[in-house]
């Protein structure tokens, strides 16, 4: 009986197990290099866009395996626009950010209308953006700068999206960071036990006390470890606040709200959803509007990280976001998937990228590995589901 529980738990958390194994694998190969505080910092700041775009892509994919191919090119265009506003024209950070966000919303509305109300297949509607936006962005950059790159961005902008909060020197314990970590860990423990108590009270099936303890213990330990390492690397990266905020908001939307449920329902069976009174068109519209808004935020974090807007910014971002979702168990045909899964998927891809970089694997083999990891993850997902049913 115990063995059965263990096997089913492992199966349920297969990607988590894979993540741990991959991490240990690279730990051995890099002789602990991937466990250094700077590696933790790099993992977060380099992959921030994957987490942010992953949230948006998840909402799109939930509605029936629909994707947004244009987000990478849109990141490039918005970066260029932001650069022109802030660096070339010298406008204020607040006004510029607002304008960039407005462009994002305008595109999202247009795209959403095309997909939801005209019924253009999403990947074709977004393929247009994929083709057009990088061209537009590049020509904006070229006409405004001889090098094709606009920068440096004003410090007031960089403060919002990059750098560290209460920065200290590397190797010195950063107390605000550690304290935030301890608070977060306590919250996780509290939340797990509160959920369990509520479920028990309502008479639902709930985790055993041991399982709850293990779950909260692992969660808290991971958070403490990450925050401890970050506190040694100079403090909380500003971008982590954005990532954490967005991930928490979408986690709440998908699991606790009616509108979140509707995304799953539409993806499960759109006809049934429509007949049950769900406004399916509005859900599709919202999915793409939301994606465009998150793309705007992501564009700003990317620009801030490089302190410049480049024509290459955002290349393959759509693939990274899709991969994170699919590896994280989001169904490619819609209706299933969770933010937590996406976060694990994004982290797994991030760890593989970082690990391959640190053992200085040839960039070409990196692509090969990335491709096969994606395929293996999906095959694994399909096979494990087949056995369950």
């Amino acid at each position, binding site marked *: 009986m115990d063995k059965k529980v263990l096997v089913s738990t492992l199966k349920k958390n297969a990607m988590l197990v894979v993540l741990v194994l991959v991490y240990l694998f690279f730990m051995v190969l890099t002789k602990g290099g991937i466990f250094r505080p700077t590696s933790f910092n790099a993992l977060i700041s380099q992959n921030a866009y994957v987490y942010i775009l992953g949230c948006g892509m998840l909402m799109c994919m939930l509605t029936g*395996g629909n*994707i947004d191919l244009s987000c990478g090119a849109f990141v490039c265009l918005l970066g260029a626009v932001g650069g022109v506003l802030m660096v070339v024209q010298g406008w204020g950070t607040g006004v510029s950010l607002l304008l960039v966000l407005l462009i994002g919303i305008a595109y999202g509305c247009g795209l959403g209308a*095309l997909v939801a109300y*005209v*019924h*253009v*297949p999403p*990947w*074709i*509607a977004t*393929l*247009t*953006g*994929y*083709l*057009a936006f*990088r*061209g*537009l962005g*590049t*020509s904006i950059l*070229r006409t405004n700068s001889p090098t094709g790159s606009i920068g440096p961005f004003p410090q007031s902008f960089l403060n919002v999206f990059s750098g560290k909060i209460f920065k200290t020197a590397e190797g010195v314990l950063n107390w605000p960071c550690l304290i935030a970590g301890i608070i977060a860990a306590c919250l996780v423990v509290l939340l797990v036990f509160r959920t369990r108590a509520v479920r028990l009270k309502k008479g639902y099936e709930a985790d055993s006390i041991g399982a709850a303890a293990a779950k909260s213990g692992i969660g808290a330990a991971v958070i403490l470890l990450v925050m401890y390492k970050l506190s040694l690397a100079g403090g909380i990266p500003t971008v982590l606040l954005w990532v954490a905020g967005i991930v928490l908001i979408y986690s709440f939307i998908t699991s606790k709200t009616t509108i979140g449920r509707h995304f799953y329902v539409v993806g499960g069976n759109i006809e049934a959803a429509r007949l049950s009174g769900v406004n399916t068109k509005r859900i599709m519209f919202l999915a793409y509007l939301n994606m465009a808004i998150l793309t705007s935020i992501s564009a700003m974090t990317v620009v801030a990280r490089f302190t410049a807007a480049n024509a290459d910014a955002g290349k393959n971002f759509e*693939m990274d976001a*899709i*991969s994170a979702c*699919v590896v994280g168990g989001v169904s*490619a*045909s819609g209706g299933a998937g969770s933010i937590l899964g996406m976060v694990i998927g994004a982290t797994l891809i991030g760890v593989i990228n970082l690990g391959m970089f640190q053992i200085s694997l*040839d*960039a*070409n*083999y*990196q*692509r*090969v590995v*990335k*491709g*096969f990891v*994606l*395929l293996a993850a*999906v*095959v694994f997902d*399909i*096979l494990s589901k087949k056995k369950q049913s």
Partner: protein
Amino acid sequence: MSENVKKAPSFKQNVTEFMQKYKVGEFFQKYTMVLALVIVIAFFALRTGGKTLLPANINNLIAQNAYVFVLAAGMLLCILTGGNIDLSVGSVVCFAAAVGTVLLKAGVNMWIAVLAMLAIGLAVGAFQGFWIAKLHVPAFIATLSGMYAFRGFSNVVLGGYQVSITNQGFLDMFGGGASCYVPDYLRQLFGLENGKPNITCLAVGGLAVVIYIIMTLRKVRIQKKLQIHQSIIGTAITTLLISAVIVWLTLKLANHRGIPTVMIWICLVLGIYQYITTRTAIGRHLYAVGGNEKATALSGVKTRNVFWFAYASIGLMAGLAGILTAARARGIDPTYGEGYEMDAIASCFIGGASAYGGIGKVSGMIIGAVLMGVINQGMGILGVDSNYQKVVKGIVLLVAVMFDVLSKRQKR
């Protein structure tokens, strides 16, 4: 209207009657893309002062877009199975071409290299098809992973550098360099000196028109026998127009350097795919699977094999496109083939293939590919910034699909 009442019909009635009789509305819907193509060609001819219609540019149009025709033919089968696509073709083109080029450089016989490239394409296609058909991995994901992996592999094979091809036989055969044209056998036969017009090209063009007309007549006779009513005038007009296009094309090519060898491969591929989609059981199965996969499976069709066939076929086409690309560029670079998948997909959709599968024709795809090619070339000659070229391409694709979606909705 009853037949007994004979009254002079008003002008408006006349028009409506005419429109109904000759199905004007249907005509426009059916041939929108042809009309669009004519308008676009006329537009660029006017803007460039007729430069786009020079024999050399007509020749370039075919040579530059050879890969689009070949890949789009393969892509059409995938799209037919239910709007599935193959994102990996660009990378597979590069990988197959890279291996072939390296083999040619090592002095291997050109036909062995060609076979190797085709085999690689077929093997990759079958590999991806395996996951898609047997395990129901979404086609999008399976080919996405191929897109990453084979781009990486081609870099590894080429060591990150450009490798050039010097095998003249290979270049002549697959459309690279200055002598990649079918020699003027007929002029040689009559003992004439080489020159313009190319008589072989004229003869082949004439033969093509004759064959086309004979086939149309045969089709009309069969339709009559089966009592399928088709407007005779409509058929005559289409036949006449297509014959005129062939004659025009022949004259243009004959006044350049003759038939480019690459055209043979394009015609071969298009002919085979036209045959597969219209005359064979597997062709019908492709449409059936795209129309309703479950119903098709329940009717006893092994739908898995249909998917496998579609993906193996596009793999093979990617191998062939790799050969053509390598020959045209007289070498290969690790970045070749990027974006090819988009060209192929766009051609199919502009040519009226349904993004939900089950609908699409080779003839439509050809028009889509030519339209994309004309737009590309016209903008190139006009000197439009390459960034804006992409924007225009994207908008053309979107408009084509929107038109498709909206016109189908009206029908319902």
